[in-house]
């Protein structure tokens, strides 16, 4: 059944700071970066930031993993006269595109008129995401995980990747192709961190951090802020750019995935998956579309194997066939024709978390907006539908379909 809020809201503004290597944004403060991203997004929309009256966060309103956004502080910083909606999805980066659904809930409830969703990230040495899990005092729950030395996200993901290799014959070569295919999209992007084309030899020589995963299978560690503005379709018509219409949006997941790699209890086939199947099925039901209807896929890529597993969960290929799908070049974007390669749907035309910047998923939303506006640097020809995913992580995970107006 079609989603009752289908095509009723749109993303109308996108804004960001520069992207910095981890820790290099100092002496800027995290609120300074957040404010710049919000003001840039409002300027892009053609509104004043003082018109923002709604906040729809994810990651439990986290700014990175140790800082927190607080709506009152942002109002004080930016001089917003009043707010009438302030809400967050729980858990972590899995909720990123789902926050646009949260914004839609506030807008359709007539609680607010212009809603901002944002992330700011500043990984000063003591705030480095990769070490946050390991340095935290173990909770009673985490006392069943942390003593094993599975302390960084890469450790955790390598165990899932290993199981996928065992069950389906998936190869490290496919993980490398995820990295190389998306790296090929950053050479012309001024703000991208990693722009040099990546060869198979360079990938194979990348240091093994958590066997079977190499350093280049891990996403970048970057600082920066990104904000997007969502509003109702009637207001969107008056904004500066063509609206990126919110066609479907869902967050959640099923019990078998649950806390995911924070407990490792998932039964097969969920263990060697991205945990997105339940949410994928929801957005396809909401929209009546399928993976093959997407013109571009912006797939959350904190670790390369999780791209492959999401492609399976969203139905770009069958479960267990991700290896062959990836290795046949179907993630690639052909700049000559502005289309996919070998019948595939181009993935992460912005380079993703692996190559452009890691702002916990927000850059994927920005790319989705630019693709359906028709203004992307690596524009997919006649792009009508863009899929954006968040996670994979503890539930909720989420996804979003943006439609060209």
């Amino acid at each position, binding site marked *: 059944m079609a989603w009752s809020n289908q095509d009723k809201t749109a993303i109308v503004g996108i804004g960001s700071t520069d992207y910095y290597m981890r820790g290099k944004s100092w002496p800027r403060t995290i609120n300074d970066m957040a404010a710049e991203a919000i003001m840039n997004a409002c300027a892009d929309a053609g509104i004043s930031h003082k018109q923002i009256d709604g906040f729809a966060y994810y990651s439990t309103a986290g700014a990175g993993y140790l800082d927190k956004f607080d709506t009152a502080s942002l109002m004080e910083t930016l001089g917003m006269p009043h707010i009438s909606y302030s809400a967050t999805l729980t858990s972590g980066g899995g909720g990123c595109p789902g926050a646009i659904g949260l914004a839609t809930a506030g807008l359709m409830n007539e609680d607010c008129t212009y809603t901002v969703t944002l992330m700011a990230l500043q990984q000063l040495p003591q705030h480095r995401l990769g070490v946050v899990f390991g340095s935290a005092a173990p909770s009673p729950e985490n006392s069943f995980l942390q003593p094993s*030395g599975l302390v960084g996200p890469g*450790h955790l993901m390598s165990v899932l990747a290993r199981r996928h290799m065992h069950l389906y014959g998936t190869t490290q070569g496919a993980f490398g192709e995820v990295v190389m295919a998306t790296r090929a999209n950053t050479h012309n992007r001024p703000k991208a961190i990693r722009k040099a084309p990546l060869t198979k030899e360079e990938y194979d020589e990348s240091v093994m951090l958590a066997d079977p995963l190499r350093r280049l299978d891990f996403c970048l560690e970057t600082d920066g802020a990104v904000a997007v503005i969502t509003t109702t379709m009637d207001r969107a018509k008056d904004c500066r750019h063509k609206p990126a219409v919110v066609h479907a949006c869902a967050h959640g997941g099923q019990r078998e995935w649950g806390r995911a790699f924070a407990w*490792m209890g998932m039964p097969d086939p969920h263990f060697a998956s991205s945990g997105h199947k339940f949410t994928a099925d929801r957005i396809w039901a909401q929209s009546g579309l399928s993976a093959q209807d997407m013109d571009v896929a912006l797939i959350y890529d904190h670790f390369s194997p999780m791209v492959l597993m999401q492609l399976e969960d969203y139905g770009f290929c069958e479960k267990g066939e991700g290896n062959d799908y990836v290795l046949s070049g179907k993630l690639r974007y052909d700049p000559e024709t502005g289309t996919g390669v070998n019948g595939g749907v181009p993935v992460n035309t912005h380079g993703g978390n692996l190559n452009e910047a890691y702002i916990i998923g927000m850059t994927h939303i920005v790319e989705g907006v630019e693709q359906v506006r028709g203004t992307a640097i690596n524009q997919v020809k006649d792009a009508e539908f863009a899929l954006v995913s968040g996670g994979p992580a503890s539930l909720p995970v989420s996804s979003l379909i943006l439609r060209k107006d």
Partner: protein
Amino acid sequence: MTYGPARALPGDQIKITTNPDTEPFWQAAKEHKLTACECGECGHFRMPPTAVCPECGSREKKWPSLPGTGTIFSFAICNKNPKNGEDYIYVPVVVDLDGAPGTRLNANVSGCDADDVHIGMKVVVDWTPIQDGWVLPNFRKA
């Protein structure tokens, strides 16, 4: 690539915390008894231990003695001690526990080379003293 012997991480670096739902597991471990949380009414096993049976909703718990054996479900090979960054080959394993269907423990395996660890490998519990007098269940190749 050859890693060589898999070692458990040093117990003197490891700390745990407990709550009333999880403490019986750790008290049993102190006595070198491997247990898992079993529903006192419907017999469903769950790990980590939680307050309520996810199947039937009961708060009754049992803590049966398990055989102490299991099967490696998946693993990673890591090469740095996470506490100090020094070179250290250890193999975190996810183990399906015999006698408690559906439950797993995350631990280290030793008694073999890291290169020889594989999914489906049989393991037996190996007790590692850790901080504050607690004891951690790790595993050795069976």
